[in-house]
């Protein structure tokens, strides 16, 4: 282990990248799945050992690619936040893989299954790369790798509208990436550097009259990343993408893709600009808060009126991203902890929920509300777990969701913004409505049609979901691994800013 230890940051990227290389040439979906499973199960080990190292030493892990020092070469720099998000992504990937085999076998044509796994591995590579890298342009490359792979994953959905959804996302995602790269370009012109931390250092010594250009760059970067993380009102691509992607795609993306974009936003705001500019001088936090509150309410209300359960949860994701960005906008210890812990909690909760719907799709081939009626009576375990995860989404105490809400509300009250605290809890009420509606449909109606013959799925699909649901409950009681690390990361981030 000791020989490998210094190279963990790059291994986290090479493992899925090379696995993708092999799966692309495999003909059998099952073989591709096997290799992907191995890769996916190795990754959490790497990510967790990095997290332990970072927490243990209190220092970020710095890895210079080809021994080129910053700012000349690309340098990977893993701090608590990066390792935390990497752990989340790899763990969700690892837990979701056993689920993938039957779900993919059922929804994807046999001859493209291995490509589907390839896309998944590339997406994973990109997402993990973003969490590792300390280089703004390298982050862009990884962002594009993950995005391109995501477009392909969505486009492989069974429904014809998957193509439209993928195309819509492609356009929006490309606009986002373009804005991001313009921002990076501006920064490069201004500072001559691409390394996040080096940029921060150089900006600090910059004459004040040049700051407007920097602020322009902030605008480009924040809007670009906000598109990727589906911040309201730049979320329009997300509901369709999640609704029409194959079940496994939604399961994986919902828990990871937006979360990594959130990571990038936090990195830019707190590790680069916040170090130089007093964030309160710019209206950026206010804009974040306004957009977040709008997301929390408007997207939640949209969820209430959805007739397709998958789209409903997709809208709910937009709303939940709103909670995360709200915590970022608060920019105090409790608020930022709330945002980070919600990245984690929402990751596991939403993955579990989409798995539940993926199982429904596996059994009855649809996720429309009308087709799901009474399915709870025929698939009690799956749907019982789905409802439990739903309680987590609402933020019932005793679930992980409550812990996030607690920090966010405390953060708002500490800021003296009681009105915001009430908006947070009021928007949770809308979650009660849509989760309640789903519960009523699946448990209190008579099963009809395919739902009447459905039964709980094989354990390979059920067990991953149950693990995540148990985790939802577990992290409602023991938060040392979720909120504890989030608080450490928040302290690190806030300690650096002006």
């Amino acid at each position, binding site marked *: 282990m000791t020989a490998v230890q210094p190279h963990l940051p790059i291994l986290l990227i090479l493992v899925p990248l090379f696995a993708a290389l092999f799966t692309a040439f495999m003909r059998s979906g099952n073989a591709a799945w096997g290799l992907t499973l191995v890769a996916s199960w190795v990754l959490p080990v790497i990510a967790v050992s990095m997290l332990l190292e970072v927490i243990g030493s209190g220092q970020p892990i710095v890895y210079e690619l080809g021994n080129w020092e910053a700012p000349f070469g690309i340098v990977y720099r893993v701090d608590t936040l990066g390792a935390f998000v990497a752990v989340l992504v790899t763990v969700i990937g690892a837990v979701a893989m056993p689920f993938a085999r039957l779900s993919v076998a059922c929804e994807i044509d046999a001859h493209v299954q291995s490509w589907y796994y390839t896309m998944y591995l590339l997406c994973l590579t990109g997402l993990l790369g973003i969490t590792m890298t300390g280089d703004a342009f390298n982050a862009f490359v990884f962002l594009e790798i993950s995005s391109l792979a995501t477009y392909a994953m969505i486009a492989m959905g069974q429904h014809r509208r998957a193509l439209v959804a993928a195309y819509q996302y492609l356009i929006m995602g490309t606009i986002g990436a373009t804005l991001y790269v313009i921002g990076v370009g501006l920064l490069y012109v201004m500072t001559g550097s691409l390394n996040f931390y080096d940029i921060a250092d150089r900006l600090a010594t910059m004459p004040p009259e040049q700051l407007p250009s920097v602020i322009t760059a902030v605008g480009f970067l924040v809007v670009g990343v906000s598109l990727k993380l589906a911040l309201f009102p730049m979320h329009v691509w997300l509901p369709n993408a999640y609704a029409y992607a194959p079940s496994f795609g939604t399961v994986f993306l919902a828990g990871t893709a937006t979360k990594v974009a959130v990571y990038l936003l936090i990195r830019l705001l707190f590790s680069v600009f916040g170090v130089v500019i007093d964030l309160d001088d710019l209206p950026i936090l206010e804009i974040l808060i306004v957009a977040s509150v709008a997301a929390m309410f408007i997207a939640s209300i949209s969820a209430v009126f959805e007739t397709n359960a998958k789209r409903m949860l997709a809208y709910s994701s937009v709303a939940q991203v709103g909670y995360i960005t709200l915590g970022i906008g608060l920019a105090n210890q409790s608020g930022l902890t709330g945002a980070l812990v919600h990245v984690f909690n929402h990751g596991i909760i939403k993955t579990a929920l989409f798995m539940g719907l993926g199982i429904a799709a596996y059994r009855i081939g649809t996720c429309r509300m009308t087709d799901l009626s009474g399915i709870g009576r025929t698939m009690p375990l799956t749907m019982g777990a789905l409802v439990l995860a739903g309680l987590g989404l609402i933020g019932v105490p005793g679930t992980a969701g409550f812990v996030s809400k607690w920090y966010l509300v*405390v953060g708002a*009250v500490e800021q003296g913004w009681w009105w915001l605290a009430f908006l947070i809890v009021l928007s949770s*009420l809308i979650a009660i409505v849509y989760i*309640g509606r789903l519960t009523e449909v699946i448990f*209190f109606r008579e099963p009809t049609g395919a739902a009447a013959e459905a039964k709980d799925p094989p354990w390979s699909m059920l067990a991953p979901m149950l693990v995540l649901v148990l985790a939802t409950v577990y992290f409602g009681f*023991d938060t040392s691994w979720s909120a504890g690390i989030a608080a450490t990361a928040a302290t690190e981030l806030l300690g650096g800013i002006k």
Partner: protein
Amino acid sequence: MLPFDDVTLMMAAMAVPLITAVFILLFHKTPNLREGATLIGAAAVALIVWSLLPGIMAGERPGFELVQVVPGLSIAFELEPLGMIFALVAGSLWFLNSVYSIGYMRKAGEPRQTQFYICFAVAISSTLALAFSKNLFSMFLFYEVLSLSTYPLVTHKGTESAMKAGRVYLMLLMGTSIALFLPGIVGVYVIAGSIDFTPGGVLADAQATPFVIGGLLALFAFGIGKAAVVPFHFWLPAAMVAPTPVSALLHAVAVVKAGVFSVMKVVVYIFGIDTLTVSGANGWLVYLASFGIIMASIVALNQDNLKARLAYSTVSQLSYIVLGAALATATSITGGTLHIVMHAVGKITLFFCAGAIYVAHKKTEISQLDGIGRLMPFTMAAFLIASLSLIGLPPFGGTWSKWFLALGALDSQYQFAVAVFMISSLLNVAYLMPIVMRAFFKPLPGVETGTPVKMAEAPLTCVVPLCLTAIGCLVLFFVAEPVADLAQLIELRADGTQTAGSTPPVLGLNANDR
């Protein structure tokens, strides 16, 4: 009584109902074994909570921390007199209610009985955990578990109206708790730095302005929707669509009392009665609760459905307890605490009677009850006794709680509340006594006066519990003193020595400064 230390007993009290639930599930194919499990579990819980009593009387405050969720936010338990009284009420009545449930559910042929008994057991477990809670977070947690576990009971019938009632129930109880109760907890946490229940109140030294204190009180009074403070009371009449044993134990005892208990506990241990009286922040709640008492009674007058009338009566009676808390004097707290007990025993009897009438004769409306006392003499006699107790007439338990509440009102600066109690008592007479009179004095339809009729009571398992609780109303009149003693052990002041009303207050003596 049981040879275990108090902490073990507390754990057992919360765990036994859950273990019972597991056995209920295991025996779902054999109803007799299943109901046997319920009865044994309920008896064990009753025994356990009573075994905790001597320690509390002796001044012990057993407690333990289960887990710390985030710093400052832990699931912890500590038993004090107020929680003890609530636990005794809920724990003891569960047994009687289980006996009653068996008779009722079988006679009425209700479906999904296994689910019914499991939810019941979970609800009792969370009720006890709520009673034992050491801080607001634990209380909030079990408050929500209680809402969620009783939701399937409200929607048990599965009809459209039951679903609708269930939606109102869940939306109102969870909605108010998340939208108001939770911000209240956060507010206390941020202002006072602690959410532990502390004698004298955690807000006592927080230097909060009266406006902030009044605002926080509003968050708790409305956020604890289970206390059914007007205007958040309408879930309770809606919940009457549930099978009667649910209405009896949960919507007359466990759930609603969990609400008023929480209000009481927040007033005593979070605000501190002195903080409230000195700041005057409790004034608005005194007026609101008074209004609720009168209004709900008037609405009750107009209900023809027996359970609906009882439900509005409950709304009114709950506000007695809230009023007792809002008056924030030592005597009114004692009165409110006593009323938790007295109203529980009285109201469960009334609901038992309503359910017995339903299973025996399928009658739900008061206008159908002409002469039913001749068919069901025991049931209606119990109904009479419980009514008299609720009205507050001696020799029944309800006398004492009203007595202390009225004295508490005199002690306070809101002496008009005495009039509220008195007017409300008259209204109680007006909406309860006609039922009894109709049952006993009107002729039975289709039967000539003077001809003997054959008694047609509900099954014994229904009649025996309701007779026992009716006798309980009588017994409580004579043994009210130990209950009041226990209520007076509640530590109202930080030093713990100035406990509530250690000497009985004398009429006419303004004891504001006590």
